[in-house]
């Protein structure tokens, strides 16, 4: 590797790839470059029979529109989906709408789109974030677009929910018995204390051994910067340029 400097997003891509199992049907929505790359990496390494529905990938052919994907999810035909949010709380609820009071927000975003349904109807959902700080990981979100699990028992039709949260610092997991997000492992060069400090809720690290894991092996990195990068230049050209530079420089 001429460039061993690993971009935090590359580590996240590796972590996401490891969470996907061979044979699953995995879909990504809009503005989800890191999950898309994670899906490609998984398919090109340990999960060749992964079935990918990557929004923006020219080789992904659905018949028509997002309603088709939504229908698949509602029928239980999407094993894994990805979401993000401007706030995520301890229970795994996500906020994609506003910061502050809904009527007088300090920031208003495009909104939740299909997140409420997809979080409930996909087999499991992996959350990904571009940051890891206390503004993002809050005790309680200002607005709940979608919930990570059926806390109150009012949605018996619910199929799945939160499985993991992948951030630039670590991978967190949803613990069903504790009904909360807990720290799973940290990336190389990151301390547990650093994660705890940057998370606005308790991650149940007390008394648990939290390992440091590099989810990106040498071969993973080569595949990521090779065929995965080539796919990403088609599906997410801006993201690819940000991570790997202009095309001519890296090929």
């Amino acid at each position, binding site marked *: 590797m001429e460039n061993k400097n690993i971009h935090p997003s590359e580590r996240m891509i590796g972590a996401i790839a490891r969470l996907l199992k061979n044979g699953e049907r995995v879909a990504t929505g809009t503005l989800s470059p890191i999950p898309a790359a994670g899906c490609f990496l998984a398919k090109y390494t340990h999960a060749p029979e992964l079935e990918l529905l990557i929004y923006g990938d020219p080789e992904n052919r659905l018949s028509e529109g997002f*309603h088709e994907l939504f229908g698949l999810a509602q029928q239980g035909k999407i094993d894994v989906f990805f979401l993000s949010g401007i706030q995520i709380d301890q229970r795994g609820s996500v906020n994609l709408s506003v910061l502050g009071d809904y009527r007088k927000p300090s920031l208003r975003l495009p909104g*939740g789109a299909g997140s409420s349904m997809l979080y409930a109807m996909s087999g499991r959902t992996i959350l990904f974030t571009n940051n890891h700080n206390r503004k993002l990981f809050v005790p309680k979100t200002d607005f709940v677009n979608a919930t990570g699990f059926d806390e109150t028992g009012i949605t018996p039709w619910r199929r799945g929910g939160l499985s993991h949260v992948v951030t630039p610092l670590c991978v967190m997991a949803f613990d069903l018995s504790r009904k909360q997000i807990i720290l799973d492992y940290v990336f190389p060069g990151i301390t547990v204390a650093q994660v705890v400090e940057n998370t606005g809720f308790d991650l149940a690290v007390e008394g648990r051994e939290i390992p440091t894991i590099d989810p990106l092996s040498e071969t993973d990195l080569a595949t990521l910067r090779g065929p995965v990068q080539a796919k990403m230049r088609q599906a997410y050209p801006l993201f690819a340029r940000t991570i790997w530079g202009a095309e001519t420089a890296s090929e």
Partner: protein
Amino acid sequence: MLLGLQAGVHNLPFIPVFGFLDSDYLRIRPDLKILKDPYTGIEYVVVPPIMPDWAVIHATRGDRNGGITTLSTRNDRLLAMASRKTIAVVEELVEPDQVLPGLHEVYVASVHIDAVVLAPGGAHPTGCPGRYDIDAAHMAAYVTAAKDESSFQKYLETYILAPRDHKDYLEKVGFKTNGK
């Protein structure tokens, strides 16, 4: 909301949806109601149909009768079918037997289309996949201009009000296709 459009397509009074029941949408959206499934007794959120008076969609090709092809990654056919009136802005005008969907395209029958407007490059500054990309520099300039009233007015004047017609606009923004 796609199911709202689906209800609109079929002129249904409402449609049940998954999700929303345990969300804050119920606090801010009085039009979302909860209804018991008469078959199972399970409660669902129901939403009203969405039937826009007008839809304007960007399509790839169309004929003089109103048949069009449009991108399959979008929900334009659903939108056209749910709306009372639909205007299709098309990249090319072709003969009716040439309105054939290509890769990543779908056909929308003329019965759903009320007007076809020929405007090559009509999606600018967004892109039309396969024909031209998003004009990222123009989008960035727009975002900057939209930050305050005076710069926004200047943008409006330069790009919207000053150009004589669509062709003039494309010249002004330096529009380029992917060599097609």
